């Protein structure tokens, strides 16, 4: 079955890049512009994997992940953090919030798909 | 366009059977490739365009688009006739341009093969040189194949010849 990926990023460029890369790799893609909209999307849609940015208006990536992890419906969804910040602090904060893994921007499509494979059955 | 539909179109252009729509202008018969034809409609009075070439009848409203009308009789060098209800407008699309060709009447649709099409004879007439790209002899009739592109009015920007 085709997997559905939810991408959460306030940058349209990044959303489009993800869309292109993910669709090319055969995924279904849902999009949200920030954490708030991400939660909104998850109200009536299921995602197999979530890819989220960290720096976003209204609800940032950390907050978004915490909310998802607290939601009984989506708590088991793998979440990959997408960020240019590759420093240890951001990663460990994302991990504490419940992130499954991370992708460092700018990403190579192969690495992106690779990361998804490493977290999803 | 996917490869399949591209192949289909290809087929229509070069394949053995080719459809042409025949019509009368003056006392002669002409035809054009049916692929260029969008629709055929009756004559409605046109709004005159200032400073236009004599063969441009003006413009009419084609479902909200402004459609220039070419008087084929004048364009082909026949004396002008008063357009009336029995006249017909053949709406053609060439590249992105849509224009109407005013003709006397549409006669029939011909299915011909490339082999049946003859080169235009070498005559002095400007009309023949510019607009006719081939001839058909069918049941004793002579039908000239028009090059639609050359019939169109010259554009200001010189885009269309």
């Amino acid at each position, binding site marked *: 079955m085709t997997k559905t990926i939810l991408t959460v990023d*306030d*940058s*349209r*460029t*990044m959303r*489009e*890049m993800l869309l*292109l*890369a993910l669709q090319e*790799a055969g995924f279904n893609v849902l999009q949200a512009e920030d954490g*708030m909209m991400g*939660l*909104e999307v998850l109200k009536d849609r299921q995602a197999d994997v979530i890819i989220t940015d960290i*720096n976003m*208006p*209204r*609800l*940032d990536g*950390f*907050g978004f992940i*915490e*909310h998802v992890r607290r*939601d*009984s419906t989506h708590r088991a*969804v793998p979440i990959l953090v997408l960020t*240019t910040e*590759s*420093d240890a602090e951001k990663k*460990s*904060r994302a*991990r504490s919030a419940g992130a*499954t893994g991370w992708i*460092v*921007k*700018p990403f*190579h*499509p192969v*690495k992106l*798909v690779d990361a998804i*494979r*490493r*977290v999803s*059955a | 366009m996917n490869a399949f539909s591209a192949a289909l179109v290809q087929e229509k252009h070069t394949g053995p059977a080719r459809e042409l729509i025949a019509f009368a202008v003056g006392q002669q018969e002409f035809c054009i490739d049916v692929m260029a034809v969008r629709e055929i409609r009756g004559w409605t009075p046109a*709004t005159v*365009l*200032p*400073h236009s070439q004599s063969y*441009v009848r*003006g413009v*009419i*409203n084609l479902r*909200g688009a*402004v459609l*220039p009308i070419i008087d084929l009789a004048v364009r082909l060098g026949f004396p002008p006739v008063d357009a009336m209800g029995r006249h017909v407008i053949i709406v053609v699309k060439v590249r992105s*341009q*849509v*224009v109407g060709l005013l003709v006397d009447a549409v006669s029939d649709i011909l299915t011909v093969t490339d082999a049946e099409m003859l080169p235009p004879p070498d005559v002095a007439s400007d009309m023949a040189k510019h607009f006719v790209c081939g001839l058909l002899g069918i049941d004793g009739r002579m039908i000239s194949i028009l090059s639609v592109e050359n019939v169109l*009015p010259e*554009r*200001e920007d010189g885009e269309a010849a």
Partner: protein
Amino acid sequence: MDSLRQIFFQECEEQLAELESGLLEIEGGSEDPEIVNAVFRAVHSIKGGAGAFALEDLVRFAHVFETVLDEVRKGRLSTASPVTETLLRAADVLADLVRVARDGGNVNEERIHTSADELAALSGAPIGANAEPEEEVSFEDFGFTPVAMDFPVFDDIAVVDTVSVEAEAEPDATTYTISFRPHPGLYTNANEPVVLLRELSRLGDAQIVCDTSTIPTLEELEAEGSYLAWTITLTTTHEEDDVRSIFEFVDGDCDLEIITGNAASSNDEPAGVDDDIAALLARVRGEFTEPVDESASPAASAADVVVGLAGSATAETAAAAIPSTPIIEAEAAKPTPEAAKTPPPAKAEKAAGSEAPSTNQTIRVDLDRVDRLMNLVGELVINQAMLSQRLTDAGLARDSEFATGLDEFEQLTHDIQEGVMAIRAQPVKSVFQRMPRLVREVAAITGKKVRLVTEGEDTEVDKTVIERLADPLTHMIRNAIDHGLESPEKRLAAGKREEGLVRLSASHRSGRIVIDIADDGAGINRQRVRAIAEEKGLIQPNAQLTDEEVDNLIFLPGFSTASTVSDISGRGVGMDVVKKSIQALGGRVSITSRPGEGSTFTLSLPLTLAVLYGMVVTVAEQTLVVPLTSIVETLKPKAGDIHGFGGDSRVISMRNNFLPLIDVGRELGYRSQPADPGAGVALLVESDGGAHSALMVDAIQGQRQIVIKSLEENYGRVPGVAAATILGDGRVALILDVDAIVAASRTGASNSETAFALAG
């Protein structure tokens, strides 16, 4: 890729606008942390995208910029005046870099270096423009460099798979013994051992043994506990790093040991029971096992006991009810329930709790779709007009039922049209936002002090109008500073504030948008303007002109106050060009000026370019439309007002003035004989340069809103005709190009079809 680039640069423009307006608010004294965050995010986003397109210069500069903004964000750098100025300058440089990245051309290296050095000085770190962003190092850590996106490489995936399948056949394979015991936290973060094992087996030949020895008895078993461990013997040609990288995401959430060779795992003793309980408690408490959470509140610990007693069935619900450990570094807009424990910062209210996140619903629509809809509505308007005309023709319109139905239809059509136009409408903000930078630059070059005040930024107008407004506005603002405002010394001497004021405001007025550009400078120097106009032969030396007429001289083609032209207002563009471009939008420009107090330029523009209000007239049995914006007044001339003037020309006398009388029918070649002026109507029109003329038509049919249709799409340009429209009778009517008609009559091209044809 091109469309991605396009999206990226569009987004850059948005982010740059956000950046600038944010910085201006900060400069204005705002201390809203959300603004600082937004400013930071703007630069951050540009950097992120630029990285993907390998725009090195942009990445480098954005990185330096971002570092400083991060300092501001963390409160380590105050935003006092010199700092914001530096940041604004950096924003300008960033905008330049974006533009160069998009359009090519050269960057002003010196400006970049100066700005980067200023930024570096602020952040206190030794980063210059040439410093490598730290990210670049980490790109390499991750195994790739910031390459431009290249999507066709998707084929690689298949290749990788093939290689790994064949791996076991390779001669120099190594065997690793991997022992892997997940912690509960691994499951909490949605990692899945099965996936990891699958990935491991992709690397080569994997023998997997599961250790179930720590599974407790059924009654002790916790549904979300971690009891399994695995020992994998992997034979692969891959390096140990490749093997480790599979466990990258779970580092710290598991016990992992990788031993080269076939040695048995030394870690197969069961995990301590204490460990598991601790882990479970941590899970129940709120999921985290990381040391970051050491500040677990007493309330939470107390709850642990309750949960422990209640058993697993209620554990999950209880966990949801218990406040989880707060992340220490509080972010303004993080609407976690625990925010209630501490008084939230004012801004945090913006973001609601997870139960009901408020979203400002917007959708992005392809412009083509809106345009198609706009066209259809145009059809509807025409159709409605045709229908009402037919009912009138049939004598039915007076029937009350038809009349009511028709009225409703008309109203609905009108509402739909307005609705669709509203979709295309955008606030003028996007143009106004570009002006502060312009003002800073012009002020710097002229050595003047300028304060720009903008009002009515939210006033909406059609997107196309906005796009075409930028150039004239830019020029008028330049003009206001360069010519309008005095030097600081002169201002002080005149008893004014040293700092000049330029006010840019927009508002809606009777179905049009009105934009004022006002300065508090010296006002128009009418004597000088007159002198220049005389010198250039634009007016007769002794012409009687009102103040207003003198002011309007600056719009005349060929009028350029050459002696004061600097490299700012100059560039070979005069106010005549401004006026022309505004008129091309169906707009008008006017000036009011008071000596010593300043000048105000007022632009009045239609809200859309898709429709216009026109006067429908008859000329030689043809129906024409004259845009209402060009018509000053209409009159029925008396035969005595018309005078011959030279060979073919005629003039009409109006209030002690003689105006050229233009016979539209002849001008357009509809007739060769002059019309009888006594039988027709004269339309007094204003054309280029504010000159007035009278257009002679046969009759006026009425005024109405019309939908503009392109003639060029299927035909081409027609001299003297601006566009076409479709009237209620379904026929095409031409819209007169007033300026072209007047210009053609002036050059004597009238009455000559060939002249027109050649001119075309």
